[in-house]
């Protein structure tokens, strides 16, 4: 263990809540002072609130508080983050600089459209580059996250079927059993009934089951390609043809777009629409769980239903078109995650035509390398080349040593790596889903694989090391059952 590299978090004193550091009379910001006449607040506003229990701390204490908290939090800049399905790639610093330009950050969403030609240029620029990359006819940037994009796609599909008088009749959405949970949840959000479609032993969509499920009650199939098994669906064209022949639409879950950028275009596969996670594929930071950024792509038959306003070119200018009689309406307050679009624009222009394909080529190279290096200790779920992530199973350690995928993951934390995704997809037992991304160098991957091999040896020789992990962090394993039983979701002054 001693010769294995990795970042280990500092041992720290237990951090206090900010409320416990409060002292009456302190303030952490030099607030603007009024120079207009005083007013009688009760006369102007009516009854006023009583207490306002916000903490009172000085500015330096505030910064130390958050610096301490940052030291007990793991990000991509801390170390390797091979969280499958999440595409934890480097978030370039130049993106932060461009998004912070006053001409972008200080725009009010309801200021006159004539005063934001630069913003519209960014939006149309991102749209046009994503059209080139995905092969769709249209892109909208209004959805605010991946699941929000899925939901918007299903709304477009719903509006399309309604426009053909088949809205009521087509009430079923087919979702493979390997899909992300957001797929069935988004379908339910659009009032659809969800039917699962099984996956074959080889890891492909079960065509026999699909054929049996297809009839005139099916609104859509939601398919992730490459699938959550990290495999490209080789029958994709046939699948799209089958669904179209039954009058249904095919949605592509774009969580795995990183495997395809510059190499293959989902619009060419036969899909009708797709969501993209710009916070995965196009490097906008995840921010600890958001903001996401959920663009969607679609074919022209769905275009009339796009959420308004539609950003498009007209007579040599870029306009925000609100004259959209068939629109589904708004799905969010304004223009989408504009400052995230600035970051995505910056990223796309850094790669350009010349280098765009390098993204998918190195993402796939890295995943296959990890897969090859670990195959003897953690066998892949399928004996096929993987795409941008590899799905391994720890089933053998569970059977023989009582060690679960979760134990391996927690032990990885002790060695300074963020764990991969566990137990997803649900159809692979003791699943470890590893997505290295293209931004990791070979040395990091080698260190990670060395550690994984070591942990697998520990699983056999000293399994308690894994059961007790992690032991290097500010806390050990936490009691999640107690968290539900004794709900404590806010601090109270009385404590």
């Amino acid at each position, binding site marked *: 263990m001693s010769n294995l590299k990795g970042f280990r978090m500092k041992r720290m004193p237990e951090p206090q809540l900010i409320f416990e550091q409060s002292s009456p009379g302190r303030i952490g910001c030099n607030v603007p002072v*009024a120079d207009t006449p005083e007013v009688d607040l009760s006369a102007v506003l009516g009854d006023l609130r009583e207490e306002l229990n916000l903490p009172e701390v000085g500015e330096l204490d505030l910064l130390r508080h958050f610096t301490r908290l940052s030291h007990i939090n793991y990000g991509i*800049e801390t170390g390797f983050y091979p969280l499958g399905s999440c595409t934890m790639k480097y978030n370039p610093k130049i993106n932060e600089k461009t998004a912070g330009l006053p001409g972008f950050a200080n725009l009010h969403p*309801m200021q006159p459209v004539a005063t934001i030609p630069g913003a519209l240029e960014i939006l149309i620029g991102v749209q046009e580059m994503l059209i080139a990359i995905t092969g769709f006819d249209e892109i909208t940037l209004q959805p605010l996250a991946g699941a929000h994009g899925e939901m918007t796609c299903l709304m477009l599909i719903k509006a399309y079927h309604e426009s053909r008088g088949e809205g009521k009749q087509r009430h079923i959405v087919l979702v493979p059993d390997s899909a992300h949970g957001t797929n069935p949840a988004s379908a339910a959000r659009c009032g659809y009934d969800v039917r699962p479609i099984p996956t074959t032993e080889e890891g492909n969509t079960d065509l026999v089951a699909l054929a049996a499920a297809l009839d005139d009650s099916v609104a859509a199939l939601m398919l992730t390609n490459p699938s959550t098994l990290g495999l490209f669906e080789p029958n994709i064209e046939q699948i799209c043809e089958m669904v179209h022949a039954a009058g249904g639409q095919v949605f592509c879950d774009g969580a795995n777009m990183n495997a395809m950028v510059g190499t293959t275009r989902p619009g060419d596969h036969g899909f009708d629409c797709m969501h993209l996670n710009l916070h995965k594929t196009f490097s906008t930071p995840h921010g600890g769980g958001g903001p996401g950024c959920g663009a969607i792509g679609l074919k022209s038959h769905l275009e009339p239903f796009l959420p308004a306003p539609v950003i498009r070119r007209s007579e040599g200018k870029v306009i925000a078109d609100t004259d959209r009689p068939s629109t589904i309406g708004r799905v969010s*307050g304004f223009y989408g995650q504009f400052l995230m679009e600035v970051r995505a624009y910056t990223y796309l222009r850094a790669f350009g035509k010349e280098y*765009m394909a390098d993204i998918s080529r190195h993402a796939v190279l890295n995943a296959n390398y990890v897969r090859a290096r670990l195959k003897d200790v953690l066998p892949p779920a399928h004996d096929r080349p993987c795409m941008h992530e590899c799905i391994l199973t720890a089933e053998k350690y569970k059977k023989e040593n009582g060690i679960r995928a979760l134990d391996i993951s927690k032990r990885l934390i002790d060695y300074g790596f963020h764990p991969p995704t566990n137990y997803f997809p649900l159809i692979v037992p003791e699943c470890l889903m590893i997505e290295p991304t293209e931004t990791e160098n070979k040395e990091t991957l080698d260190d990670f694989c060395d550690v994984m091999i070591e942990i697998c040896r520990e699983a056999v020789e000293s399994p308690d090391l894994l059961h007790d992990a992690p032991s290097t962090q500010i806390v050990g394993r936490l009691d999640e059952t107690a968290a539900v039983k004794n709900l*404590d979701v806010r601090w109270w002054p009385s404590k």
Partner: protein
Amino acid sequence: MPYIPHTDADRAEMLATIGAQSIDELFREIPANLRVAPGSLDLPPALDEHRLMAHLWEISKKNVNLADVTCFLGAGIYDRYIPASVGAVISRGEFLTAYTPYQPEASQGYLQAIYEFQTMTAELYGMDLANASMYDGATSMAEAAIMSTSIKKRDKVAVSEAVHPHYRQVLETYCWSMGIEIVVLPALEAGATKDYSTAEGVSSVIVQYPNFFGTIEDLAAARKAATEKDALLIVVADPVACALLKTPGSFGADIVVGEGQPLGVAMGLGGPMVGLFACKKEFIRQIPGRIVGRTKEAHGDKPGYVMTLRTREQDIRREKATSNICTNEALMALAATVYMIALGKNGLKQVATTSVRNTQYAIQQLTAAGATLKYTGKSFDEFVLELPKDPTFVRDELLKRNILAGLPLGPYYATLTKCLLVAVTELRSKDEIDTFASALAEVLK
């Protein structure tokens, strides 16, 4: 390309380990007719970092940004001071580049910060608890409406006409897709909801506080009307106004939502924002989105934080989940956390009080300049002016004088074509308000 560190030697060694001749070979499962050659997409050329920055700078300069004009535009997004500490904290890589805290032992920093966020959001709104954030104010309200239909098992909601028009548009989209009916409560006569009581069978009554016109709605009456129909009261509340106003919670609101942008988040053309979502304790199991809870170690006594009540969420419950939301707005929630701490109880009250003073002064000066105050109800930091000239013309004329005067309401309300919605935050000075008033007098001449 600095973001991809592979050398030729790396690629060769890695391919050898894999047992492949080339990277192309790794893509062999993609049918050949579906592959495109590297470098063949119709994209602009790559830019080096210097040229990239210059290019973006040029584009950004084409916009009129609010450093160049004096902003009296609000309508749900407010020009408020953002303390320098906010940017310093949210740009730290440990926060900025983290994923959702699925591994709590390695994510205690963020989890604790979100617990602090939940505490302060609930405190501001006077509610039992709050979640870890939603996308924005508009979607937060739509989620609250849907939550009320699943609690009350009735597919109808009532919403005041004085709720932000974009929020109502988002509500319409969500409700259309789920087959939920919307009843609109009139509010244009006096700028506040005329009658909070509504048709039978609604699951919730939705009002905004202060409302879109800046008027402070009568939440006691709204509560009473909702209770009479056995409906939930949903309040869309401005968090800064709640530093002074009686809280929605003190009136018995069931769910309180809002846009958290005024709490230290850049306007950024409206994205990313942060949706606030708070409710009564009894509804915690129906709440959408993530919630952080405090617990302790499984084999020890140290306290720690985890995401809790996870069985409500999509990755576990799939189509039976309370919502499809997965990613929320954690980074913006962190910004709001830093903001609320930096200002603290006295600072936030001062911001709110200064806004009220500035607003009262602006009402005096602007009405003296020839405009009429359309609605005379109590207001916090926003109000509607009726103008003797076309508001869009007036707005555009004032913009030539570097004043962003507000929002013409005609496009949103057919009967308010003479009206302009004006907001005055703590950032406006007496001088700026005087300049606005004299410019308005000139334009109205």
